[in-house]
């Protein structure tokens, strides 16, 4: 299987450089410690300055969209976990909202609140991975240990509520997998009280650190006009001063009832995006506190036996329940024909799910609109004429997850 660059319009090797030499083409990846996954960059260098970048992707292409077409509607939730693997519940949420829109059902308030709780916990854990790995790539080794310590706490909560640390498949069309246990609520309560202190620790390590500031201030500039034109989303566009956050502009799952701020920065550089992500973690803790304080009682699943199985006790007494159970576990439910697009705000930006149904028990087409796929196209604009050593900081600030890019 050739992965040559034949036919690609790159490599200006041999071209005269501004400093008297020639341009040198350097291959960055796909096996590289600092590319946040299997990303390959073909970089043309003039001395140490970057003259052009060509990202080559596809090294993690998993055929998730094709796999979802071969699975039933309720089974396809499992593969939605795995494309943006740092925020599985948020991916589940986009898919679940899309399917529920096509089915015309709305989940009960307790399920909505639990969905918000899981989304915000995931946002925190995703930003912790970003902060830890970006730190260690720029040489700050201790921040990795601190961030992953907190992440272990969040993953322990995931495990308490769903049984899985990472790929929870917790949010499903029709509601959520299971109700929150009292131990989960206790862990969440403790987490919301302790996390702000930990975020203070990270800020103490990095925010006024002269090395961190020297490596991120002024690096990776993305002007607001460029951010808009290139379709950037998430901290990439908020880092250029545009307050676009889907939780505020196109709210879903009850987000309009929570009080939180949208983090923006006018700095347009890596440091600004770092401050945004720190603030987003703090706002996420605020939302978690509000959600926990006013968690409504009630069922966690929509009461539709054609979509979700009946409770096991009913199978002993009701024939209808047995038939529903049988149909759901052999064929699965059918979604009325139509197509819909739902977008949610993940740690990276706009993560959306475009679902096309042909009326059968399997999806016709599931397309995942990936924030990282679009944000990666902004890499060239951000990195041009920077030094090669800044490349690592710029890839880090884009916070791309290659599973999401390649699907």
């Amino acid at each position, binding site marked *: *299987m*050739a*992965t*040559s660059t*034949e*036919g*690609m*319009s790159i490599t200006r090797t041999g071209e005269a450089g501004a400093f008297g030499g020639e341009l040198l083409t350097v291959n960055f990846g796909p096996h590289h410690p600092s590319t946040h996954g299997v990303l390959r960059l073909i970089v043309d260098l003039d001395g140490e300055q970057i003259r052009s970048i060509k990202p080559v*992707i*596809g090294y993690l*292409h998993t*055929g998730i*969209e*094709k*796999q979802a*077409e*071969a699975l039933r509607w309720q089974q396809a939730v499992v593969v939605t976990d795995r494309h943006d693997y740092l925020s599985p519940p948020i991916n589940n949420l986009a898919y679940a909202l899309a399917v529920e*829109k*096509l089915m*015309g059902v709305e989940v009960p308030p307790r399920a909505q609140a639990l969905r918000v709780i899981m989304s915000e916990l995931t946002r925190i854990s995703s930003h912790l991975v970003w902060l830890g790995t970006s730190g260690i790539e720029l040489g700050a080794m201790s921040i990795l240990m601190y961030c992953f310590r907190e992440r272990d706490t969040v993953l322990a909560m995931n495990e308490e509520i769903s049984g899985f640390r990472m790929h929870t498949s917790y949010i499903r069309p029709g509601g959520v997998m299971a109700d929150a246990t009292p131990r989960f609520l206790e862990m969440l309560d403790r987490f919301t009280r302790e996390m702000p202190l930990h975020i203070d620790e990270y800020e103490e390590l990095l925010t006024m650190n002269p090395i961190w500031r020297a490596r991120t201030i002024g690096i990776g500039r993305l002007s607001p006009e460029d951010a*808009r*034109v*290139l*379709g950037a989303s998430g901290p990439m566009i908020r880092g250029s001063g545009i307050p*676009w956050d889907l939780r505020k*502009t*196109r709210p879903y799952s009850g987000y309009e009832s929570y009080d939180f701020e949208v983090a923006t920065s006018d700095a347009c550089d890596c440091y600004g995006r770092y401050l945004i992500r720190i603030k987003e973690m703090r706002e996420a803790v605020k939302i978690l506190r509000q959600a926990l304080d006013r968690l409504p009682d009630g069922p966690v699943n929509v009461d539709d036996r054609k979509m979700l199985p009946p409770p096991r006790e009913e199978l002993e007494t009701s024939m209808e329940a047995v038939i529903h159970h049988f149909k759901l576990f052999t064929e699965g439910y059918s979604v009325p*024909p*139509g*197509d*819909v*697009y739902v*977008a949610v705000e993940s740690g990276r930006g*706009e993560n*959306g799910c*475009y679902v*096309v149904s*042909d*009326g059968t028990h399997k999806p*016709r*087409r599931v*397309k995942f*609109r990936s924030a990282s*796929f*679009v944000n*990666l*196209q902004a890499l060239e604009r951000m990195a041009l004429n920077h030094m090669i050593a800044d490349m690592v900081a710029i890839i880090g600030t884009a916070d791309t997850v290659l599973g999401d890019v*390649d*699907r």
Partner: protein
Amino acid sequence: MIRQDLIVERGVSAGDEWVTVESGSIRDALAELKNEGFRLLVFLTCVDHLVDGSRTWPARFELAYQLRNMETREELRVRTFVDGDPPHVDSVHDMFPPANWDERETYDLFGVVFNDHPDLTRILMPDDWVGHPLRRDYPVGGEVVEFSEEHERWQTAPDRA
């Protein structure tokens, strides 16, 4: 809104507004929408309607362009149907830069050729891959698993043409 003569059909699906235009006039339609403020192309993708009995489709491949107006927060889906071997449609990468990679991906996975695209090569599959995997007559592939239901269909194709 787009000129009346460009619109073939319009409707609402689960709360999403959509319009269908002729494949030849996709550039005009998107240019008009861009002038009106729909300046963000959220995504562009293709759907293969081979053997889909839920309704009669004008052509096999449907291209869907989701546009968004960030000021008014409206969204609109523009659909067009193309056929052919391979199907051709004009590229819109100059109007909407995010379309550059989206069109390469649609070419890679579906085989739709975008005219005037600067670099229409495979982006996700290896460069010498044969076939377009997301088409409905391309098998899901993988390993045969004994006693799994419908797995013979996976090995041939989800839809037999």
